[in-house]
């Protein structure tokens, strides 16, 4: 049983047995039986189908579309082009704030990236719509595509990520490097990657006059409502979005995309509900990706291995028309102590869709390069990579000088290393072989991700039968929000989880903030927690002021809420059930609203991050270079664990993503056309089961009294960080070859001089 202290009213305490329990997913049965209804499963009466026609060029103008041919195709109802697209109330190229991304919704004939929507065909059937789109046979004025990090104008972006400064400097890096006894300079390259959730972006949109009903997956319901309201000039109250399940998001469903808006426009145009589902290849353009990076690390150390300087520079790319620059260098802000740290970014503009936050944006790419360079420096110093990291352990956040709100990274290192057997690692590479002669290598990386919190609201109610209701428009993209948030909700009401109805996933519920930045459980959870506190406080008021209640007069002593009863805190023999309290008061239910937001004062005082350590074993064929990850152990500390089963699954998924990052994922661009040549799941490789070895995640205990009242950090993204670097370092340890160009493939090792038969 865990006690949750109640900052809002320290007089009252709630007890629950839900938080901390490894409950299975509450929506699991729905999902394995196919009963869970995803957006594209909806089929309102008289619905028709829309298909996108997308550009095959990267840059230029559409000069002709054979609309007549498309319209003549049996079943085609209408064709939407820039000429007849219904008007929008807001310019889709407006950018009023950094979270507002420019959309391609047929505002003109310009093409600014391959796979940009250039028309929408609406038809009675999917087949007719698809063929109608093909019949448009677009013609273009083609301009040369701008591709790749070289050969295009380089500039310093105004911001990286969403609104972070591109450059940051503490101490004198050049002096630190000059004074160093060892210096390492290394350049790592990571490719463009695409989110590729299993569920493509999909929308079913239905208008009823100026009221709009939408089924679509989104990681941010309230933000989506705001965006649609602005674009269509209608009141947010008139928009209803359902997003009960997402078939993965990873950041790609964080904001409304152009194709989703086109689905709404198509419904408006034909006056019937419309379904629009992206084809897989159409996901490689208008719905975001992770931009490519080239990162140069310069490190200096003193004789004892202590860093004297750390400089991290990133070149990355955004689209020609909007800004999202992968903030890779910022991964170097928090992890390692150094008297001088400088991070910088520059960028180029390419004819691609706009990059977007993709699982651990900045941290994933930056961590790969940072952990690689750190490994190279440990090698230069002749130190064990773990000892080297401990030597440079940051006791306070190095760039800000703030203390950490909590940091159990030492424990992560210790428990991970112990479990992995790290102590037996030989210092030199190419020392270990397995029984069949494969080269064996061990590598490690530190994982980190900030503990973010956004703003959210929730509503709590206790009903006359003593059961509870909790509502917040939270989004479950598979991470387990339906379960973990329900656990927080139940404990927040002092009830068993089966006694609480938990509602989420629709836009008419209180704003739960975005399911992103690994901050959803903390953000939405704290709103639920606060709503629970408030409703219990009201209930306590009712009881303690009623003369015939056993709790009469207990207001100052406070009460304990548990199992559907309030107990007098200083005398638990006196208690009363919620139902009885409400019955006496003659109330059918009692409700309260709660809110959450980061506390700026506490955030100013402390640096808040989750941490972890990942250890990887790879086996490499000594002459063929085939790489296989055979073992992964991650140990993570991220504050309070609401549900260890869900948390473990986030870590495992994150680490598998790291395998993908290190060895597989890679969007291949044709330099002449600017087209992505492997825009499908056969050729855009992610790991298959056979690639995934034994993966283990250790949940390291960490109590954080500052981050929020529940002590929750975040677990969704941290598993990606550290892992890719650990694998790359293990490949070096196995072979003695550093491959700094990701993903690491056979040819990297062959070119690096892998031995011969």
């Amino acid at each position, binding site marked *: 049983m865990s006690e949750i202290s109640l900052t809002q009213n320290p007089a009252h305490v709630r007890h629950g047995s839900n938080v901390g329990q490894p409950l299975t997913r509450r929506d699991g049965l729905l999902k394995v039986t196919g009963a869970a209804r995803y957006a594209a499963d909806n089929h309102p009466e008289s619905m028709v189908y829309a298909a996108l026609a997308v550009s*095959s*060029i990267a840059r230029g103008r559409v000069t002709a579309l054979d609309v007549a041919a498309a319209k003549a195709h049996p079943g085609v109802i209408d064709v939407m082009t820039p000429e007849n697209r219904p008007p929008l109330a807001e310019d889709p190229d407006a950018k009023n704030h950094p979270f507002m991304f420019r959309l391609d919704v047929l505002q003109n004939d310009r093409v600014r990236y*391959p796979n940009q929507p250039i028309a929408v065909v609406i038809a009675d059937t999917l*087949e007719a719509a*698809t*063929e109608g789109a*093909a019949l448009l046979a677009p013609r273009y004025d083609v301009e040369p595509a701008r591709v790749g990090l070289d050969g295009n104008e380089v500039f310093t972006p105004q911001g990286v990520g969403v609104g972070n400064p591109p450059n940051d400097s503490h101490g004198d890096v050049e002096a630190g490097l000059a004074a160093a006894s060892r210096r390492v300079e290394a350049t790592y390259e990571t490719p463009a990657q695409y989110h590729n959730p299993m569920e493509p972006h999909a929308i079913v949109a239905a208008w009823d006059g100026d009221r709009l009903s939408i089924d679509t997956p989104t990681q941010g319901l309230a933000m989506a409502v705001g965006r649609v309201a602005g674009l269509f000039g209608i009141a947010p109250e008139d928009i209803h979005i359902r997003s009960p399940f997402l078939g993965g998001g990873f950041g790609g469903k964080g904001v409304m995309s152009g194709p989703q808006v086109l689905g709404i426009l198509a419904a408006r145009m034909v006056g019937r509900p419309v379904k629009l589902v992206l084809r897989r290849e159409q996901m490689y353009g208008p719905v975001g990706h992770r931009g490519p990076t080239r990162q140069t690390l310069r490190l200096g150390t003193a004789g004892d291995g202590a860093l004297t300087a750390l400089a991290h520079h990133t070149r990355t790319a955004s689209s020609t028309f909007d800004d999202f620059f992968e903030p890779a260098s910022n991964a170097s802000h928090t992890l390692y102590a150094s008297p001088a740290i400088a991070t910088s970014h520059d960028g180029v503009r390419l004819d691609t869709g706009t990059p977007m936050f993709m699982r651990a944006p900045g941290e994933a790419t930056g961590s790969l390069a940072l952990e690689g360079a750190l490994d190279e420096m440990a090698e230069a110093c002749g130190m064990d990579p773990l000892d080297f990291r401990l030597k440079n352990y940051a006791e306070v956040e190095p760039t800000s000088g703030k203390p950490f709100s909590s940091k159990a990274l030492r424990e992560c290192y210790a428990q991970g290393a112990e479990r992995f057997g790290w102590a037996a690692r030989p210092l030199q590479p190419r020392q270990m072989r397995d029984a*069949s*002669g*494969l080269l064996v290598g061990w590598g490690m990386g530190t994982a980190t991700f900030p503990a973010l919190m956004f703003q959210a609201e929730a509503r709590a109610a206790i009903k006359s039968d003593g059961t509870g209701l909790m509502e917040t428009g939270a989004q479950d993209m598979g991470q387990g929000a339906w379960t973990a948030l329900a656990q927080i909700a139940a404990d927040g009401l002092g009830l068993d989880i089966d006694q609480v109805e938990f509602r989420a996933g629709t836009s008419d519920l209180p704003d739960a903030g975005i399911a992103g930045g690994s901050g959803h459980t903390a953000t939405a959870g704290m709103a639920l927690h606060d709503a629970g506190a408030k409703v219990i406080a009201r209930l306590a008021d009712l009881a303690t002021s009623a003369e015939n209640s056993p709790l009469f007069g207990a207001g100052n002593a406070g009460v304990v809420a548990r199992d559907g009863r309030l107990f007098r805190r200083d005398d638990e023999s006196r208690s009363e059930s919620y139902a009885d309290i409400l019955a006496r008061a003659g109330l059918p239910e009692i409700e309260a609203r709660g809110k959450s937001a980061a506390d700026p004062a506490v955030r100013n005082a402390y640096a808040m991050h989750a941490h972890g350590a990942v250890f990887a074993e790879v*086996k490499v*064929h000594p*002459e*063929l*270079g*085939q790489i*296989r990850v055979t073992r992964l152990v991650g140990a993570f500390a991220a504050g309070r664990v609401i549900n260890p089963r869900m948390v473990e699954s986030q870590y495992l998924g994150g680490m598998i993503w790291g395998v993908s990052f290190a*060895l*597989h994922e890679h969007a*291949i*661009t*044709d*330099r*002449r*056309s600017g*087209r992505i*040549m*492997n825009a499908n799941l*056969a*050729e855009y*490789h992610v*790991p*298959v*089961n*056979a*690639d995934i070895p034994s993966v283990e995640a250790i949940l390291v205990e960490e109590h954080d009294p500052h981050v929020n009242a529940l002590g929750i950090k975040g677990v969704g993204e941290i598993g990606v960080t550290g892992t890719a670097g650990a694998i790359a370092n293990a490949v070096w340890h196995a072979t003695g070859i550093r491959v700094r160009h990701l993903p690491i*493939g*056979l*040819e990297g090792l*062959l*070119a690096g001089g892998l031995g*011969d*038969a």
Partner: protein
Amino acid sequence: MKRFDYVRANDVGEAVAALAASPAARIIAGGTNLVDLMKYDVETPERVIDINRLPLNTIEATESGGLKIGALVSNADLAYDSRIAERYPLLSSALLAGASPQLRNLATTGGNLLQRTRCYYFYDTGTPCNKREPGSGCPAIEGVNRIHAILGTSDQCIATHPSDMCVAMAALDAKVHVIGPGGERTIAFEDFHRLPGDMPEKDTNLQPGDLITAVELPAEDFTAHHSYLKLRDRQSYAFALVSVAAALKIEDGRITQARLALGGVAHKPWRDTEAEAMLKNSTPGVASFSAAAAKVLETARGYGENSFKIDLARRAIVRTLKQAADGTPQSQTDKRIR
């Protein structure tokens, strides 16, 4: 996808007649390649002839002691057939190295022979491609060609044939049985697939209206010394960067017969009989294996991204021959390479 007519053939004669009646028709077997290509508008048949009801799904003994595999036998059934697994383990192994279990359940023997290249440009109607649109150009030669051919290429096309199964069949000296407007005939495996030359649109030497009925394996015993090694970017569900099928007979420490074929390196399964002749009568060992590899790759040419395949193929040939000679064939379940 274009609209198309669908007809179902109930016997071989009907299928041949249906093919003859509409030249723009395509046969559909498992559909795992054809349907994808139709969705991408790369194949736009006016008529699709379903042959799944034809009695071509059995494996039968031949008079000369070999096996005749019906064109509709699925890749999964073929791989796990006990006669194949026991007598032609090289073929089982190659099949199991391919695609995924789900795909192998649907994919057929005939369809596998005729699956088309995985060249990215071929699939992308937004780009030119000589194979898809003769005369439009080959963007792969100076473009994205990491997965492309290093042997037998032409200045018109550098695509590969992506099959695993066919590499083993080439090594096993199989024959393809076809029936066409002019009746039945057999085609030696060597002559079945083509090099691109100046007609990259033609993958094989089949004539219009031909239907594959079976693949015949001769009665030869390579069970003691064989291996199929496939190198790829992930452990399953990826096409070969380079694959090697090796089959040897070894008597008294000498190779008395050798078969060597490569996948992922050419427009056809690349069997090299000259290298086989060099291996014959040699002592198994790195020296003879390396010499054979050098022979195979004598004319190899890289195009940039794929140049590493030359070195990789050399290493793979040596390793596969060693696995075969040692009697330790590559396992396709435990994918660890020894």
